[in-house]
């Protein structure tokens, strides 16, 4: 299909900051083309440890509590495999990224969805969580700021969840890849809560904040027992993350902050523009406080989310993702990634307007 505006993929439209690319190119010229230590170069682990400590108040020991992985995708997989035994139930806060549930299944566990609802601004509530806990529950997988809803969890939200984790002796796998993309106030990392620090696996990476999707660099941070178990899996399935990516990631932490901040400012402008436009079209959408997704309801159109997405693509060449693909609570919503330029967003909005107008018209014709 020609001339499609894709709001479908969760990938920044920015290219990696040039200072980061330059450093990687130089390192290749210098012959950095080898394996690294399984858990990643000491320089990068040190930088990650320093970054998490100063930025989010969650320091980890770079020697024993950090593993550099091939993107957060691998980090999520090895985290789940490290802690899940066959027969364990794993709670997954949904709507969510598509890989957690299959990873739990591959590890022999039973995924159990926990709904995050629009009326709670897509936060995970202790009530919803408590309902799904059984004696076989092992862990909770959560992703805030959230893909696809843009929902975030503040300190009090996490404290309520933390109490349940302690009471029921559950582990937490917290995917925080969108942490830098938090627009109102600072990101709160649950590992900051001392009571659950030792039962939390923090996942993060460079793809979203530093526009480095193709470099495949993420990381897993956890208490040493868990890290040791995850490292065994990592060294057999991946050996190590690519060295060029690790060099680039180190540079991103060292000198990429200003460019990252500029990208975050731009995402915020896009969010404002796009969500305002959606609401004006009658597609009600809460103002997402994080990530780069708008998650409007399409109920007012009388179409299901799948019908809406398919018809919008067919008729106006705008690609969005039906929310129900991302979990039962996503039903009736579509995910629109605003990681495209403001001009594209404006174009997408006017196409959506034309789409809704033509629908109204055809309804009138068929009812006459």
């Amino acid at each position, binding site marked *: 299909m020609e001339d499609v505006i*894709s709001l479908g*993929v969760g990938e920044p*439209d920015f290219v990696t900051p040039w200072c980061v690319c330059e450093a990687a190119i130089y390192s290749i010229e210098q012959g950095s083309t080898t394996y690294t230590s399984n858990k990643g170069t000491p320089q990068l682990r040190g930088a990650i440890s320093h970054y998490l400590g100063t930025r989010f108040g969650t320091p980890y020991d770079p020697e024993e509590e950090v593993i550099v992985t091939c993107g957060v995708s691998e980090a999520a997989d090895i985290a789940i495999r490290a802690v899940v035994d066959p027969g364990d139930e794993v709670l997954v806060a949904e709507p969510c990224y598509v890989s957690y549930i299959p990873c739990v299944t591959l590890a022999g566990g039973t995924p159990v969805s926990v709904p995050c609802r629009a009326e709670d601004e897509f936060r995970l509530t202790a009530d919803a969580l408590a309902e799904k806990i059984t004696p076989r529950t092992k862990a909770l997988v959560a992703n805030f700021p959230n893909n696809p809803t843009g929902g975030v969890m503040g300190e009090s939200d996490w404290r309520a969840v933390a109490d349940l984790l302690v009471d029921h002796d559950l582990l937490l796998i917290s995917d925080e890849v969108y942490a830098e993309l938090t627009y109102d106030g600072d990101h709160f990392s649950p590992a900051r809560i001392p009571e659950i620090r030792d039962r939390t696996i923090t996942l993060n990476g460079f793809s979203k904040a530093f526009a480095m999707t193709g470099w495949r660099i993420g990381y897993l941070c956890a208490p040493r027992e868990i890290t040791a178990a995850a490292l065994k899996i990592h060294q057999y399935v991946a050996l190590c993350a690519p060295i060029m990516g690790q060099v680039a990631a180190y540079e991103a932490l060292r000198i990429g902050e200003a460019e990252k901040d500029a990208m975050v*400012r731009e995402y915020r*402008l896009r969010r*404002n*523009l796009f969500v305002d436009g959606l609401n004006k079209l009658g597609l009600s959408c809460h103002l997402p406080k994080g990530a780069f997704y708008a998650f409007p309801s399409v109920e007012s159109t009388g179409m299901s989310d799948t019908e809406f997405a398919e018809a919008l693509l067919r008729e106006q060449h705008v690609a969005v993702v039906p929310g129900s693909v991302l979990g039962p609570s996503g039903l009736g919503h579509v995910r629109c990634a605003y990681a495209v330029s403001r001009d594209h967003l404006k174009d997408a909005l006017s196409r959506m307007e034309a789409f809704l107008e033509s629908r109204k018209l055809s309804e009138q014709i068929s009812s006459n």
Partner: protein
Amino acid sequence: MDEKDRTLLHLLEENCRTPISELAVLAEMSEQDVKKRIAWLESTGVIRRYGAVIDWERAGNGNVTSVIDLKVSPERDFGYDRIAERIARFPQVRSLRLMTGTYDLQLLVTGSSMHEIARFVAEQIAPMDRIRETATHITMKTYKENGTTFAEREEVERLPYSF
């Protein structure tokens, strides 16, 4: 001057033709507030002028641009300010700065030909009192101007993947 003012300035610097209604949505404030803030930024001289970034090479008017470095003897009590003020009055001088390094003043000068620029330097600038030395550099090609890249570069296409 606060964060919201700075956001407005960035948006206007990027595109000063953005409608007030859109600025209001982008910067999370009312249209009234946008107007008030812009009026204040204009009146205090923070916003100097609204202009366009033009690729004159592409426009093909044949103009030549140059950077001219000057060594200047500063005046007692005035430093470089008075001589700079006199030089700034020439319309050919597009920018004028006091610099660190070997030379003192740096001028950006535009003319219709290399010959015209040479005459301007030789006849107007060099003979002025207190100018000790000049160095003229002619622009061969502009790659980037005021943050805007002129060279055509193919856009990176995002490759399809499943999610």
